[in-house]
């Protein structure tokens, strides 16, 4: 992340209480002995490799890392990590992880979930984890389809999608997970793509360093039931027009490079509406192009950025860290209250508690 705009120095404190590894770790240390059983060609493999590959960079004692998942293809993830892990029930991983993280601040807790798990059955837990800002890193694998139940539309599927349960096309308007997270008061929201290992790793790293809940939406290809859903973002020619790469402190430019070598298209604020729109840089002038500020206290611009993407074509999809701000972390607040209670009332005395203030004595 380039630090050209002043912002809160996130980073080490997110993991300050997690013990460090004694020896240098390698990717191999994070691979469990279980056979990986996703379909050949599934985008999940790439994400698993990226996570196993970047974990050693964190240098944390792996016994203090926990992966918690719900139900769905991606939720098998914990079985393949040689850390502590729990494969729980559909949609509930954020709540289980909340209990774990808020009772054990010495752990680095990760939630692995999918678009059905997090946004459909578990939508309630997701938004409340985000507003509380529990110290969790949520990896939301979005493939815009239900894979494990063999191909029904999901809450991120495009309107009109023909699936097994919607032979005449789905009627539901989809969620934009980034918009949703921003609306739920998330302090860290990012989006990345399974096939872009470098970008994926950099976003995971930023999430790991973030104190509080980090939501990372990972566009992930289901090659069986929704193959090519994100092709427009991956195809070299098309991606240039479709993907808006966000970098903190940099002007938001994309598309075919212009004379200055940067994207010929850019994002500007419409002075009439305050909304954002895409323009030709040459026409608007470089000074008019919005500079991305992930640390802005207000989520307004991040939300407007999230709305640039066309839900059907995915054109103008921003990827990168949309929002990264510091605000009080739930687990810390909870621990502080415990400390304050001891300070104010002294350490609990069970005998005194049971006796209370209003007693009488029976003598034999």
């Amino acid at each position, binding site marked *: 992340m380039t630090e050209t705009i002043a912002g809160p120095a996130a980073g080490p404190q997110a993991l300050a209480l997690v*013990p460090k590894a004694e020896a240098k770790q390698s990717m191999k240390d994070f691979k*469990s002995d*279980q056979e990986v059983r996703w379909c050949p060609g599934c985008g999940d493999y790439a994400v698993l490799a990226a996570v196993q590959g970047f974990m050693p960079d964190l240098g944390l*004692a792996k*016994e*203090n*890392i*926990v992966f*918690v998942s719900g139900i769905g293809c991606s939720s098998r993830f*914990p*079985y393949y*990590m*040689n850390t*502590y*892990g*729990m*494969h*729980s*029930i559909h949609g*509930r991983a*954020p*709540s*289980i*992880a*909340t*209990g*774990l*993280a*808020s*009772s*054990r601040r*010495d*752990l680095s807790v990760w939630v692995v979930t999918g678009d059905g798990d997090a946004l459909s059955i578990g939508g*309630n*837990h997701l938004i*409340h984890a985000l507003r509380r800002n529990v110290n969790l890193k949520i990896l939301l694998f979005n493939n815009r389809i239900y894979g494990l139940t063999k191909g029904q539309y999901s809450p991120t599927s495009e309107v009109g999608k023909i699936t097994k349960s919607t032979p005449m096309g789905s009627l539901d308007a989809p969620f934009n997970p980034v918009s949703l997270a921003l609306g739920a008061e998330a302090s860290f929201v990012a989006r990345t793509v399974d096939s872009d290992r470098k970008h994926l790793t950099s976003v995971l790293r930023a999430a790991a360093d973030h104190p509080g809940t980090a939501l990372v939406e990972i566009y992930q290809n289901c090659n069986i039931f929704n193959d090519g859903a994100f092709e427009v973002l991956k195809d070299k020619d098309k991606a240039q027009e479709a993907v808006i790469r966000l970098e903190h402190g940099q002007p938001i430019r994309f598309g075919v490079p212009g004379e200055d070598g940067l994207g010929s298209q850019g994002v500007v604020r419409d002075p009439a509406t305050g909304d954002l729109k895409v323009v030709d840089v040459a026409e608007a002038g470089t000074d008019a192009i919005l500079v991305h500020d992930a640390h802005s206290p207000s989520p307004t611009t991040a939300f407007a950025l999230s709305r640039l993407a066309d839900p059907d074509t995915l054109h103008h999809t921003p990827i990168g860290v949309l929002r990264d701000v510091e605000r009080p972390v739930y687990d810390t607040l*909870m621990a502080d*209250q*415990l400390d*304050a*209670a*001891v300070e*104010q*009332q*002294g*350490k*609990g005395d*069970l*005998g005194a*508690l*049971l*006796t*209370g203030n*209003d*007693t*009488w*004595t*029976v*003598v*034999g």
Partner: protein
Amino acid sequence: MTSQVSSTAEQADGAHVGEQRSFGDGGTDKEIRRLDRVIIRFAGDSGDGMQLTGDRFTSETASFGNDLSTLPNFPAEIRAPAGTLPGVSSFQLHFADHDILTPGDAPDVLVAMNPAALKANLADVPHGAEIIVNTDEFTKRPMAKVGYATSPLEDGSLEAYRVHPVPLTTLTIEALKDFGLSRKEAERSKNMFALGLLSWMYHRPTEGTEKFLAAKFAKKPDIAKANVAAFRAGWNFGETTEDFAVSYEVAPATTAFPTGTYRNISGNLALSYGLVAAGRQADLPVYLGSYPITPASDILHELSKHKNFGVRTFQAEDEIAGIGAALGAAFGGSLAVTTTSGPGVALKSETIGLAVSLELPLLIVDIQRGGPSTGLPTKTEQADLLQAMYGRNGEAPVPIVAPKTPADCFDAALDAARIALTYRTPVFLLSDGYLANGSEPWRIPEVEELPDLRVQFATGPNHTLADGTEVFWPYKRDERTLARPWAVPGTPGLEHRIGGIEKQDGTGNISYDPANHDFMVRTRQAKVAGIEVPDLEVDDPADADTLVLGWGSTYGPITAAVRRVRGAGQRIAQAHLRHLNPFPKNLGEVLARYDKVIVPEMNLGQLATLLRAEFLVDARSYNQVSGMPFKAQQLAEVFKEAIND
């Protein structure tokens, strides 16, 4: 009180024993009668402060040393329309100079703050009882609201009762006229006037209430003083007015109690303290994940006050997240608890199933209320037994522990924690609305007397592979308890993954093997079936043919009824189940010993169903699902009928 049964107490809860005496001690020459027990019911509008009045009278009575039992009864609406029948809130208190078991069948004294309170409660009041009415409220509109065409105070309909008409509102306002309060503010203290009057009638100590009022209104000293003044005015009114010619004494219940220090305690408070104590005795931090629901919320409120014991309370976004957070904390090594009532249990079912599969310790506290669905939120019922027993997908056995009295909720919580921690299993603690809100004296235990609940976390490998490698197997079991090791994150070398998918025995890896699944299902069942619980004790002094078997909060009325039956010269045996799953090992043998087995329950026969299924015994159900506890007299008649049958 529960533990001591003296010979006089055998007839207790039956006829009153009284003695008359008068003495002129200078100040008054009013007659004082001694009674062995009294049942008072305070009834008024939801906004009249009847619960507070009852609580204060209870505290006074407790500190005086009587045995007591209480029954708060209030509507689910916070403020139902004023003056209506649905808006009536009442608080019944039974206190005695001996060991008693129930809040009493019928009040000796009814305090009716308005016409609705009179109308709603009159049917429960036996002829000859005293009724104190606030005459100020018996005007045209309030009477019309509840369908009184003529005033019951004047039309002779209360002739069978001893009615004390008292203008409570007027007297209160008059007493507070120098306090500069508005009429409305002054009127609010009329419950304290009534409390003062009743405190005089029954010679209750008053210091506690005055101290309480000073503390409650510490930030509004004028209101505190006004309430104290109203309270004293009520007392003085009793002392001076001729309408109250007699006052009553109920001596402390000194012989009914074992020696010790006592306090009054409600079921939810005792349960909360039991959880705090369990955390201390297990040397584990308590983590409560909960969502507010009547009548369980008080446990969340109480535990949230004890952060200095390391207790974490998490008010979740819903019932599912409440138990989810608790289960997450259990994985991390906390003593995890979730509290709820029946509808909440329904929502938590899937997570309970996960806890069964993960084999982690977890307490599920269900304060049962009337069902189905929203049912009767503020009323009591025992109809979640089968939900606790079977309400999950798959074969998912969960141990069930049920307290029998308010104070017993403390011990039951410790017992449930013992089972959860020893056997690494979710455990149901089935209390109910009657126990939760009712109160009784409790002998405060010495901390040193409490059970040691400490458990050992896994610290290293527990299995050697064929090639000699030392490994950790998360599902390798303790041979005696069948519990699996509790390996908490942060322990090096024990990294492992668990989940809701069927696991291979030992390794805990995913397994779809048919034989393994069959083995794991049977093993989980065997673990719960093998939980050590004490044998069922039977109280059968006279070699009876008929056994009455109960569980949970029916203990009080059943025991009171058994005493009446025996007092009338008939033989009956009594036993009460604390453990519903597994049953005590000797239960089948006990049932086989009797010709007739009666099972009273506040449901349609759920325990009876289990008994019939397990023991092929012809258990006779006696059922009531009115939202109210059984009455001793009602059960005594049922028992007599069964004996004579």
